[in-house]
């Protein structure tokens, strides 16, 4: 990137979802769907034979153990690192929440990883929806074949799979359950629509169920 620092005042990240959709896409008593906006999503791909070293470098730079085993996610509550393939991780955080400038996480990782792997900015390429509530698991069951039963899948786990016929990543955040769902930007509206649709059955419920 060019050296000139962007004037952050004028730069507004536009969500791929419809602009008039508020923060809460679905806000029912027992299921909620919100978009996690303006995230940094940095993909790290380790070079041949550098996987463990890259993991250590990332862990050291962010103060979070980088998951080596497939299907896992680590988080310090603000920054998530999830397994994204045999030689790949995705590091995700809200810059605002972390008090970082835009591009800072990318730069931090680039410094840390250096010649151990490639660091690729995907921040604008992903839409992230957070689905939570007592009914979240049932909503997910309508769109994905992944077994999300607590015995099979819990907080700290992730799955690269298909949701409503779209490639997506599921990261379980907590046992509410809360899921972060990652989909490519261009599919954001179709994806959100499918999840929304699956929530409507629970519209009339009260908190007590």
């Amino acid at each position, binding site marked *: 990137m060019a050296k000139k620092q962007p004037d952050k005042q004028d730069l507004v*990240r536009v969500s791929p979802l419809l602009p008039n959709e508020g923060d809460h896409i679905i806000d029912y008593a027992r299921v909620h769907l919100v978009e996690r906006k303006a995230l940094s999503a940095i993909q790290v791909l380790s070079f041949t034979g550098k996987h463990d070293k890259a993991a250590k470098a990332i862990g050291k730079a962010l103060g979070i153990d980088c998951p080596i085993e497939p299907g896992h996610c680590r988080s310090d509550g603000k920054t998530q690192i999830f397994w994204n393939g045999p030689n790949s991780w995705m590091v995700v955080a809200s810059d605002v929440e972390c008090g970082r400038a835009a591009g800072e996480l990318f730069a931090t990782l680039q410094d840390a990883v250096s010649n151990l792997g490639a660091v690729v900015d995907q921040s*604008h390429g992903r839409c992230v929806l957070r689905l939570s509530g007592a009914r979240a698991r049932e909503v997910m*069951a309508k769109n994905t074949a992944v077994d999300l039963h607590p015995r099979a899948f819990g907080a700290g786990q992730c799955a690269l799979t298909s949701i*409503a016929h779209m490639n997506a990543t599921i990261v379980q955040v907590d046992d509410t359950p809360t899921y972060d769902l990652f989909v490519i930007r261009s599919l954001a509206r179709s994806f959100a629509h*499918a999840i929304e649709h699956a929530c409507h059955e629970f519209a009339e419920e009260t908190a007590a169920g």
Partner: protein
Amino acid sequence: MSQQYRTGSGGQIDRKKPIRFTFDGKSYSGYAGDTLASALLANGVHLLGRSFKYHRPRGIQTAGSEEPNAIVELREGARKEPNTRATCIELFDGLVANSQNRWPSLAFDVMAVNNLFSPLLSAGFYYKTFMWPVSFWTNVYEHVIRRAAGLGTASTAADPDFYEQCHEHCDVLIVGAGPTGLAAALAAAETGARVVLVDENPLAGGSLNSENHEVAGMPGDDWAAQVAAQLQSMENVHLLLRTTLFGYYDHNVVAAIEKVSDHLPVPPKGHPRQRMWTFYPRRVVIAAGATERPLVFGNNDKPGIMLASAARAYVNRYGVKPGRRAIVATNNNDAYRTALDLHRAGVTIAAVVDSRAHPEAPLAAELAKHSIRLITGRTIGAAEGRQHVTRALIVSTQGETIDPERIDCDLIACSGGWNPNVHLHSQSGAKPVYDDAILSFVPGQSRQAEVSAGAAGGSFALRECLKQGRAAGIDAARQAGFKADKASPVIKAHDDGAYAIEALWISPTPYNKPYKQFVDQQNDVKASDVALASQEGYDSVELLKRYTTQGMATDQGKTSNVNALAILACQRGEPVPQVGITTFRPPYVPVAMGVFAGHTVGAEFMPVRRTAIHDWNAKQGAVFIEAGLWLRARYYPQKPGDTMNDCYLREAEATRNNVALVDVSTLGKIDLQGPDAAEFLNRLYINNWLKLPIGKARYGIMLREDGMVFDDGTTSRLGENHYFMTTTTANAAPVLAHMERYHQVEWPELDVVLCSVTEQWTGIAVAGPNSRILLEKVIDIDISNEAFPFMAVGDCQMNNIPGRLFRISFSGELAYELNVPADYGEQAWTELLEAGKELGVAVYGTEALGTMRIEKGHVAGSELDGRTTAQDLGLEGMANREKHFIGKQNSLLPALLDEGRLQVVGLKSLEPGRNLRIGAHLVDPNVQIGSVSPSQGHVTTTTYSPQLGYGIALGLLRDGRSRYGEQIEAVFPLDDEKLRVEICHPVFIDPEGELVRG
């Protein structure tokens, strides 16, 4: 009087909740808990429809999903649903149903004349009767047959409801919540296993709801309700009622349909009408029960004739007397309880007719106790009555009966024995085997992780069902890895007697008259059709099925298949097992197509990919075109009445003469990094990549292994070990997959990593002679021709937006492509438009893009059709034959280098005002349309060139490159069109490429 056949008390109906409904325009009442069938029977209505072929009056044969006869059109308007089984329709207030396959009315049906012509409609009648003349088949016969042999009519309005799909994994899946299934579920659940229990009824209990059984010291239905409640309260159990398991697939995947809202007038808001479940169980326990089969006697299809078990279900579960004076006919022990239950409810039992000479003494004694007449060694030869049975003719099972006894009745409850429901077992790939003890098929060797228990396994006694269910539940849980030490104790039940049966597959007919003895009542297949098929040589089960249509109706022959097989065996003089059994296939019950589609219908048939500039495009009124899943702006109407031609000509001219923007975000973008990235590219592309300088882009061609061109695009070197590839929109995913495969499988030694960054970037092409002037206003780097020449690449800031600029051109004009992070895409686009206002900047869509690429002779998808080589495309000069690359070996095969191959050429229309047609064939101009002239090639893409002022095209033509200047005819026989064209070089304008370098 309303509901004159309702018993005073008993049954699982709520007499405090009356429900109004309409059948064939007449209003009736029933109670909550009724089915449409039970409510109609309570009102004395037995005639529900007309049969498929002969239009014979038909009533209710069963009380379950196996029903062949009582099929009706449910609901009206857009929700109208034909071929719905009245025995499965839960009554709701305001329900409207109509009989089908009759005209003008159910009682007087003109087509019943078919009954008289039945000799013409025997087995295989389609093949015999409608042979001649051949041309009549589609024009006359098919039309008439379809109308005559209808099964109701579907609504043509759009379905107002939605359907959805759901997935669930479990340790043990239990099919059927009857005594066996409940016992299995309880036992499996107590081990802690994840249990799913499905049942097609709205109530758990299965047969317990229809019988007077006692389980665990309480009425069977109470026990079932109690166990169901217990199961429902367990966190590891999912009990799904109104859910029918209809398919057993490979890898132990099974599918079910849940009728979420079918029992309601309309689905509650946000709820689907039906939901399809896909289950992934470790073990399956099939506790699907058994289906009773009818007796095959003359006129056995008359309303008022039903299965013995159905009569019990109506009287016990629904509190309905299915008649006032009944005959119970049987060849086994089971039907005796029908006589006793009907008797207890106040139905007169005219006689129990047992075909066996010596039924078991206790059964006879029980009847005697209630003074019920028992006739042994005889059976019903035929029934009489017009639209309802009025009399039965009793014949001897041994030889001819001179003078059959006539017994008046309005109900015949018959039982020909029980068939275990082996459908799912068979669907799983296993082969059911014949069991002589019960004269039916039972599950054979399992092929998948399934076991049948209880009646589904051929054990009909209640105690045995409970015992087997429990054992199967424990066993399944154990095999799924759970310990069963806390499993529930054996459930006690009363002894409902052993099952015993003697074969009676077909009744002798009185006076040897040719009574119609129906086997498959839904498809109107008679015993005589089976015999005829056999005589004509169609005597294997598979042939019989197809020749007679036996078992091919929507009920899939649930009540009729075994009878048909046995009758065929009698014909062939062989035992039943010798004849074999057809394979059962999903779905077990009819499943609406809509539920398979789920919500992926209409606009949601496929997900849609939108670029960051989509909303701006939409606001401008752009007309979109689908490109894979993408929606791309095709052209931009500026005023009402603007046609596509108006728009693309204007947009192309603006680009050629001034400056215009196009959204190219959909191009595939792949990030490659690593010490061996250059080597990787060098093996992938046909041209050289080892010496591309940093900050430069290069056009590349990649081949498939077979030597055909796969894809093209530019790749830029961003850093020492960092490259950025673009692919065509269509091949973005296939190219990445191709690269991943080579990376992972063929060349693991190359240290390179790949990932798609298509989504990260918005791509905006700024094209036209004034593009530099426009960009200079907003870009922070020097983009003069010296500092930023053709094929230069560099990071930049556009106003305050970080981006990357490429000096590449698809239009052939001086052009740049700006990539910015997608969330800033619309802002970058509008800022460029703002900056270009005084220049008169325009926007263009894919149509103008296509026009300009044809003018420039750039090949694209229509030429890269998987059959063209680099040489065919005129790009062979790019290949470096000194190195290895994918497809090199095959591209050198003589057949790919031969003369006579189709080569890319340009084509000019020689007729003013006329354009070429895509797909038109290029033929010798001296040949007349209609005569045979070999195609020498075809037109791949066409446009009108605003620059040149005539129609131009690209085409693939035999030896085209040596034929420039020749004239040829482009013919389009579909529309009888032909056009004289001139063959030329494919680059129409600026052949030296001076504009892009200027």
